[in-house]
């Protein structure tokens, strides 16, 4: 039965999860745990904190699976949204904001090339394309986007950190996302 489940689309798996199917939930977890954990780890910079957030997020997905609506987007993006929100909360509660890259690289097991499944190979290809689009952003726009999205800073805090007007922060956010959208369209 598990082989059948692994062939199912996310939306169908979520229908089963909403009906209380633990096996379907396990497939959803296996499919999305690594990218979701990677986001939490990037934001929080510590393995234990990232694990806590991911555990909270997936437990919430199980208990509140009816909150998922396919019309609002993919399961993956829904999961990213949940984890991002919880990670921002964790950062703001602890006051441990950081724009650093994930600090303790040795504490997290990076995905080595020889461990990759076919899905992961495709993800790496997609990641490379997106990274290229991000890297082509002007430095000042990329900085505010990183501080906001990965650092969990509010726009007011970003203005303080960078010592620039709040209006400038908002403008760079908007211009940066516009530019990123254009860059992504070019690589699509």
């Amino acid at each position: 039965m598990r082989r059948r489940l692994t062939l199912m689309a996310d939306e169908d798996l979520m229908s089963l999860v909403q009906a209380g199917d633990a096996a379907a939930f396990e497939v959803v977890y296996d499919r999305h745990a690594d990218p979701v954990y990677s986001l939490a780890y990037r934001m929080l910079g510590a393995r234990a904190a990232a694990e806590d957030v991911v555990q909270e997020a997936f437990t919430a997905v199980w208990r509140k699976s009816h909150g998922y609506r396919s019309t609002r987007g993919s399961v993956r993006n829904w999961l990213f949204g949940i984890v991002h929100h919880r990670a921002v909360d964790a950062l703001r509660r602890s006051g441990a904001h950081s724009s650093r890259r994930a600090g303790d690289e040795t504490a997290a097991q990076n995905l080595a090339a020889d461990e990759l499944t076919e899905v992961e190979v495709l993800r790496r290809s997609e990641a490379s394309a997106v990274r290229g689009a991000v890297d082509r952003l002007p430095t000042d726009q990329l900085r505010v986007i990183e501080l906001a999205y990965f650092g969990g800073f509010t726009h007011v805090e970003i203005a303080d950190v960078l010592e620039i007007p709040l209006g400038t922060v908002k403008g760079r956010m908007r211009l940066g996302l516009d530019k990123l959208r254009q860059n992504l369209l070019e690589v699509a």
Partner: protein
Amino acid sequence: MTREGCDQVEEAAAFALGSLTELENQVFERHVMGCETCARELREFRATVEALPVALPQYRAPAALKDEIMSTVRQEAARSLAGETRASQRRFGWRPSRRPALALGALATGALMLGSYGIGASLSEEEPQVVQAAVDPAHLRGARASLARADDVAVLRASGLRPLGAGEVYVVWLDRGEGPVYVSSFNVRPDGSGQAGVPDVAGVRRIMVTREASTAVRQPTERPVLTVDLT
């Protein structure tokens, strides 16, 4: 500076990035409900922001993390199943319907198919099953239903259903000969379509869908709008 006349549009990017405070989020969300300019900006920004995590270096989630999560999930799934099994021991019966008597004499044949699903899934190694779906004529509007089944797992898909009122849901019931058991519920999309997972159809004789005022029901309160006979 404004774009297309709304002075709140500058907030959309910050909102999409999660960079507003909780209070600011609430204010902007209320604003977006009545402002098409900001709603459109937000949709576009959200789609862009969703790409950001994709670019990150990928790490393997610890195995122990999965063990812990799945332990909780399996315990809760088992408790939920035990609770519903006890509730299903009651004799099956209909309460008087609030709606006019429904005539199911003229059955509308729904989709006669076993749907395939998944990413390039192929069921060619199995004979496809043909399932006849009976549809309540009162809900007919080109209504169709199909049951996609693989082993003992199935997904019920329906289209052409009537929209639901506030708080209402369509509830899926399984009948193994001892009365209906609540399985899951689903809402209807604006186009009248909906779907629900059926995690265990082993031994099931009938799958029924009723329209209920809420999910807090232990037995159907109305006649089925859809019936799938698996005998």
